[in-house]
């Protein structure tokens, strides 16, 4: 230190500082001399950005913006009219008109476009051109050229279009007009497209639907999600010895968290995953501390698990109600319909949405991490010990309360994470949770309710088998079978419980031999009958 200190003090001697300053002055002087004075003419910007009334667009410098409300009310986020014109223009130049309002008044874009022209002005005769379809930021958008002339003899040409912002539920009518009759329509169209390209907001994105994707992609992502759900449910069952009916509803909460952050805070959908997992985990812990533990400790031993099962059922329905209120609030108070908590903003690789890659990878990462956590860490071992024998674990000095708390956190976080992933995929509606629960239940039972690794297998199997069953029935009974889609999980659950109530992983050599024997007997009978 002394050496360094003295060294530091010695370095900045007046002579060294002077030399340094001379070098700096020479270089700076040379730069100033060779580059000359700055050219300020290049500095003023050519365009400005407008941010307000919940939309963004850029416009040419010098354009004056006037905002007018509808029905003698000031312009609001829901409805309004913006008129932009050049105040000091001596030459004919562009004018911009933007009208925004609810999209409920229009049946389709063409209908909205037809109603656009009366908006342009009073006593105007329009000669509309051909409508051109395109989309801006994945929102439906249609526009057409028009020529207009007013009764005072003024003529102008323009481009008018409607843009349906599906996320905010607003229809934007955007007109770009020019009084210069000699203006080139192609140039005008180019300027119009430029205007539209600046018309964006992160939240204005149409959700990606999974229906158009290949089956193997859909199945892989669905299986990944099922694995997360099944592992969580099985883990809770292993720790608490009762099926947590509220398990899937954490997923709805995870979806709601993701939706909220994406819509109202403009998060990237992927960034919301940790938050969703955290909220799900915390809710799990709160439920354990406030309901499950007090009720479980007060209940008698013989009816403890059935009371806790009922409790979880009540919790599940309470969660549905809370999410329903949230849904109502987002739709009516905030003007953002949840649409099954689907969000957009996913990237694409090779034509597939990013979630098709990230979803399965996340699942593998979580499951492998969970495995290492349970087998390689001291806390994970204590969790397993508590699951095996709580009293013995307590005797060994393990804090079983913490273990239970952690298990509720983990299962809640896993489920909420899966729910958060779903928002990029297909969305989970309020009623969707029940269907999902049946599937997850079937997967967990199939894997053996006591076996976490079996749950992984069960989750994958139930997804594949249900898909296969659906295809087979479709072959035999035609498209009408799709009406019975919701019955499949239940049918599967019943079949699984009848054939292997302890799960497929519990099937041992004896059961396999017995099954082979039965199959052989059946085959012999068939051969005998036919011969």
């Amino acid at each position, binding site marked *: 230190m002394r050496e360094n200190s003295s060294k530091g003090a*010695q370095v900045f001697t007046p002579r060294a*500082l002077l030399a340094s300053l001379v070098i700096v002055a020479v270089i700076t002087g040379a*730069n100033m001399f060779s580059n000359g*004075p*700055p050219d*300020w003419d*290049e*500095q003023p910007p050519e365009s400005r950005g407008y941010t307000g009334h919940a939309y963004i667009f850029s416009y040419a410098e010098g354009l004056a913006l006037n905002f007018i409300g509808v029905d003698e009310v000031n312009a609001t986020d829901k409805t309004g009219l913006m008129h932009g014109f050049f105040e000091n223009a001596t030459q004919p130049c562009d004018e911009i008109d933007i009208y925004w309002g609810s999209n409920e008044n229009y049946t389709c874009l063409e209908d909205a476009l037809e109603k656009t022209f009366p908006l342009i002005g009073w006593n105007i005769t329009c000669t509309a051109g051909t409508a051109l379809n395109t989309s801006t930021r994945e929102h439906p958008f249609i526009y057409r050229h028009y020529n207009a002339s007013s009764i005072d003899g003024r003529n102008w040409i323009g481009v008018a279009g409607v843009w349906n912002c599906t996320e905010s539920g607003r229809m934007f009518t955007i007109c770009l007009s020019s009084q210069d009759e000699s203006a080139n329509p192609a140039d005008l169209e180019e300027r119009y497209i430029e205007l539209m390209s600046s018309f964006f907001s992160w939240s204005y994105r149409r959700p990606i639907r999974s229906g158009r994707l290949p089956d193997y992609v859909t199945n892989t992502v669905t299986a990944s999600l099922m694995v997360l759900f099944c592992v969580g449910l099985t883990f809770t069952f292993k720790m608490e010895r009762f099926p947590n009916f509220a398990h899937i509803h954490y997923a709805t909460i995870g979806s709601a968290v993701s939706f909220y952050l994406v819509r109202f*805070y403009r998060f990237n959908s992927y960034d919301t995953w940790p938050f969703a997992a955290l909220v799900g985990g915390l809710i799990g812990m709160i439920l354990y501390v406030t309901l499950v533990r007090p009720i479980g400790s007060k209940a008698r031993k013989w009816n403890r698990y059935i009371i806790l099962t009922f409790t979880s059922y009540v919790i599940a329905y309470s969660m549905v109600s809370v999410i329903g209120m949230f849904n109502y609030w987002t739709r009516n108070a*905030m003007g953002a319909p949840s649409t099954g908590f689907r969000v957009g903003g996913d990237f694409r690789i090779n034509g597939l949405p990013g979630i098709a890659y990230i979803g399965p990878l996340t699942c593998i990462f979580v499951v492998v991490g969970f495995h290492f956590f349970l087998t390689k860490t001291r806390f994970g071992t204590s969790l397993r010990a508590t699951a095996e024998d709580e009293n013995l674990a307590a005797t060994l000095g393990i804090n079983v309360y913490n273990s239970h708390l952690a298990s509720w956190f983990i299962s809640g976080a896993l489920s909420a994470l899966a729910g958060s992933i779903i928002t990029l995929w297909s969305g989970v509606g309020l009623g969707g949770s029940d269907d999902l629960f049946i599937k997850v239940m079937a997967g967990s039972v199939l894997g053996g309710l006591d076996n976490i690794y079996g749950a992984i297998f069960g989750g994958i199997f139930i997804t594949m088998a249900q898909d296969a069953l659906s295809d087979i029935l479709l072959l035999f009974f035609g498209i009408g079978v799709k009406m019975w889609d919701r019955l499949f999980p239940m049918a599967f659950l019943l079949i699984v419980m009848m054939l292997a109530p302890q799960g497929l992983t519990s099937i041992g050599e004896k059961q396999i031999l017995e099954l082979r024997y039965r199959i052989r007997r059946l085959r012999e009978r068939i051969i005998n009958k036919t011969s």
Partner: protein
Amino acid sequence: MIGEGDLGAAQPERGKEDRMRTLLLTRAQTVLRGATTTTRKTGRLQFIDFTRGVVMAIMAWDHASGFWNSSHHGGEGVMGAMPPFVNLTWFLLRFVSHYCAPTFIFLAGTVLALSAAKRLDNGESQWSVSSHMMKRGIALLILEALVVAPAFGASRFYFGVIACIGVCLIILSVARRLPPIVILTLSLIIVLNHPYLDLGFIPNDTWWGWYLRVIIHEPNSQWPPFTGLYPVIPWIGVMGLGWSLGTHLTGLNGDETKQLKRPLIMAGVSCLVAWFVVRALNGYGNLLPRLGNTAIDWLYVSKYPPSLAFLLWTLGGMCLIMALGLELQDRPNFNGGLTGMIQTFGRNPLFFYLAHLWLYRLRPPGVPRYNFSLPLVPTLGLWLLGLLILWQLCIRYERLKRAHPDSPLKYI
């Protein structure tokens, strides 16, 4: 009678006692010296913590206002842009925040130099010091992508102040082996000459070329997601200047450090005078010209990238705040009350930065989705309330960090 043999036995005993006494004395001296050193060090660093704490609190205002006020504007100088200000009040409320980034980066360099010297002093190898700086730089880049950019609603590629400091740390982890006077000279050359840098050889019609330009010297937000406001080239110069101050401070004892007050005041005032000259001449040093003679015209300087006028004003102010810190740090109640609170912020700059962004951007349910904006006074109240919460968070974080000195928290 004491025989020879007895004498012989007693002498080693006495010798042992003497040795023990000497050893104890030496140890006591070492402990005392250590204690003196610690006091001296603490005293020396406190004004830095104070200065950093002051600008952190101001920065919190800037971000609170940015998240909650529609009248709050920024982006001074990006592609020559001049954001509209509602009035002088709103302009000044934004303008005060200009001190934050330069001070933050300058003092990051200072503390880095002090920390590197301390590590070397503790017997760590040069490689260990460099690798620690490099890891910290990488950690900052990750934090920018995962925590900071989402807080601003920006993409993960956004190159903000934390990413800039991260890259600067990585560069300094290697460049620190240069002689301090060379670092100082290079830093001054960068700060004074960066406007002349021509990156025309990097193509700007490819995403990588564009992004490289953003990272090196051309802040803008025209091509999302490759946006950034804090390019490395001018700011590494500022950090280098801070490093030079840190190197200078390692050679000073407590009394010498106190004597820095006068030079700091002189440096601060000189910078402000130089700023006035640069703005009056309206040529070199102004990336944005002075268009008139109103207060806004004089004070409106380019922050992205930082012009010389901007740096003179802000670093000059920083010198004066440091001098104030040196003046205050000898007062008995310096570690309590408001100054204590400010120092707590300054001791945990990165944690404060990460926490305050998320705290102020939170909007409770019920707040309208679109165009919601608070008036000035409630925003000020919100800012102060946030500072109180952040103070408590910083205190707890400091305890946690102290309890786990070898955890990854050391990188935050």
